[in-house]
């Protein structure tokens, strides 16, 4: 039995008594999905809270027999993504997909492993995180969500197909196109950097 199986069994038996364990177990990945979809840490925290509140209410209405059938990882990702999508459409259109490449990354958002690598590596790692985070924001929400779910959250393609409600072949193609666009954006940014250094 893996952690999610145990969680599912506990949720089916005592939702109120085990909901906190669900939040603690899945908050990092849900927050990361929201942050990479929305770009802003404050927005992402609100969206993640909203998603967990919706999850709690849904679980309360499901009853044990439906809860035991759930696949927690894709199910929660679907809720987070839905909350993010509605937030993105509510935003004024200027902010959508046109975030500047040098969005500042607050220091508390650095990767958790960074500290162990020493100060120089930390600075480099923080720079790299900021760069990839900013590049992701240049993708359209559809490609961005496919790339984030596959490569940030680490969902499998069958799980991705569930979340995005598309055939597996389609979501694979979305991830690949998203990565191709990301690579192109990365190379453009590098080229610009080289030109700036030469100039």
């Amino acid at each position, binding site marked *: 039995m893996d952690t999610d199986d145990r969680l599912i069994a506990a949720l089916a038996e005592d939702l109120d008594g085990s909901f906190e364990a669900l939040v603690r177990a899945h908050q990092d990945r849900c927050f990361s999905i929201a942050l990479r979809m929305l770009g802003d840490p404050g927005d992402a925290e609100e969206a993640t809270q909203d998603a967990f509140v919706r999850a709690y209410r849904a679980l309360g209405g499901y009853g044990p027999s439906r809860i035991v059938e759930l696949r927690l990882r894709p199910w929660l990702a679907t809720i987070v993504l839905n909350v993010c999508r509605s937030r993105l459409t509510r935003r004024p259109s200027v902010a959508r997909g046109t975030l500047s490449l040098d969005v500042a990354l607050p220091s508390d958002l650095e990767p958790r492993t960074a500290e162990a690598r020493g100060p120089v590596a930390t600075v480099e790692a923080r720079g790299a995180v900021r760069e*990839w985070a900013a590049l992701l924001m240049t993708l359209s929400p559809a490609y961005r969500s496919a790339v984030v779910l596959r490569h940030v959250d680490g969902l499998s393609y069958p799980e991705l197909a569930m979340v995005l409600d598309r055939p597996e072949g389609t979501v694979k193609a979305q991830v690949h196109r998203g990565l191709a666009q990301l690579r192109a954006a990365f190379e453009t940014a590098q080229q610009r950097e080289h030109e700036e250094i030469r100039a």
Partner: protein
Amino acid sequence: MTTDDEMETGLAALLIEAPRSLAPGVLAEVGLADWYARFDSPIGPLVVAWNGLGVVAVEAAEDEVAFEAAHLARNGRPAYPVEHLPDRLATAIDHRVRGGRRVRIDLDLRGHTDFERDVWAKALEIPRGEVRPYGWIAAEIGRPKAVRAVGTALGNNPVPLIVPCHRVIRSDGTIGQYSLGGPANKRSILAAEGLDPDFLETAARSGLRYVGSDTTHIVCLPTCHAAQRITPAHRVPFRSFGGAVTAGYRACRECRPSSGAVAA
């Protein structure tokens, strides 16, 4: 050029830790935990606890460790400190303490008995600037003999000020106890709502329990807004409800003075 591996490593590093405030926020929003904040009121510093369902507790402030332990023991939920009350809540409670008009505030009264909730719901019906005896509440909720239990339920009111247990007084007309920092606070809140507690007690000691109007022949509880409009020339005091009925008076439909008249 960048390799697929580099790109995938870069993206995998975008998985980061959620802010510490996230989980408490979720749990409080669904009512599995509570927030609390200190709040300075005219009757002294208070602690208010609430969650996404409503206000859970209003108490005289004590130190945080003692409050959190007592809160967990009483409600079975942790309480997380925050800097300030939400504006809407702060305004509503401030209005209450200063005798302002009724403000709508959601309450989370899970974990209390139906009887307690009936008592508190009835107390919420008592208008500002008026008081009712314990026996009145007991009669109104269909438990005329449970006067003492009504007193206990009001003493256990977790949200004083919001559920106005300060508007319930002893059947002999004295102001009685108050859970939120003692009887002096009860008097000052009643005074803020436009009543004169000393005058009420003096009148009660002289035997005044009901007031009638000799023009309408309607009898009221002394603080009923209808009774307060009777001019001195037409005010008729009664020591008992039975006495008023014998004299040909009928009960006011607003304050229903017959409720608890026998038990009192």
